[in-house]
């Protein structure tokens, strides 16, 4: 261990601000990109599910009244 004690370690030879700022910002940036990717993943799965549900509703509606499905299909 290059430093005698923890306090010296955090002081970082007087350059604490720069070293910890660099590592801190880098950590935050990497964390942000990972969380963002994970969040979009969940959001996309949710939209996929609601999209499929919408699809199911349309198919069900079409089966229910096939007579004017032609016009309904053109309209949708």
């Amino acid at each position: 261990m290059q430093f005698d004690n923890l306090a010296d370690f955090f002081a970082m030879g007087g350059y604490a601000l720069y070293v910890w700022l660099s590592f801190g910002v880098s950590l935050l940036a990497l964390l942000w990109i990972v969380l963002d990717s994970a969040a979009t993943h969940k959001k996309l799965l949710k939209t996929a599910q609601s999209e499929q549900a919408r699809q199911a509703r349309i198919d069900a509606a079409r089966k229910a009244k096939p007579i004017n499905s032609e016009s309904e299909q053109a309209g949708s």
Partner: protein
Amino acid sequence: MWKWLHPYAKPERAYQLCVTLQPYFLWPGILCLVIGSIWGLAFAPQDYQQGDSFRIIYIHVPSAILSMSTYTAMAVAALVGIVWQWRTAFMAMIAMAPIGAVVTFIALFTGAAWGKPMWGAWWVWDARLTSELILLFLYLGVIALYGAFEDKQQAGKAAGVMALVGVVNVPIIHYSVEWWNTLHQGATISKFDKPSIAPEMLWPLLIALLGLALFIAAVTVMRMKNEIIRREYHRPWVKALAAQALGDNHAV
């Protein structure tokens, strides 16, 4: 051309590949990053000239190197996409762009923070920092162009062309900025050079580099999965995936 890759089956297989690869990239990557940083911060020797501020090297140098290589990887994905019309190649390209931009930002920020104690200013038009800044602009250009198109297939090809134009220009920009720097800098600011690396300083640097590279690969794979779902959300396998992943609550 390899038209036999039927476009439907391919994305699902690519998705499964991403799912299996992700843990192998993410956890070793985080582990190496942590080891490299702690080793560099706490155990590596001081630099005789710069003292402890030199320890920023353990995040600045890996991110600077990987910002450039991620852009090159992005351009290779674009080339594969354009030449062999592989949709998943374009998805990989656009998956890399954001993490590449973040790593470039990290390289820029840590470079500036490292320069402050040495040159007394937060931003100095040093050759390397300037090239890094322009590289960030190239990343943002590709991302902005991709976002401007509704048809994501068109967006992929357009962003791919700009990625290729960019990758041709990266060395040109690098050397012209280097030349420009020597032209205008003169002797005032001592040319900031990487201090000679003693072996015990080098090991943590290499581990941090490996860690960040694996981490970038992991995030790329994660965003690749997102791109695939975003493009194939009406396919049945995505439906099953969504049901299974979201605890199978009924259609909302």
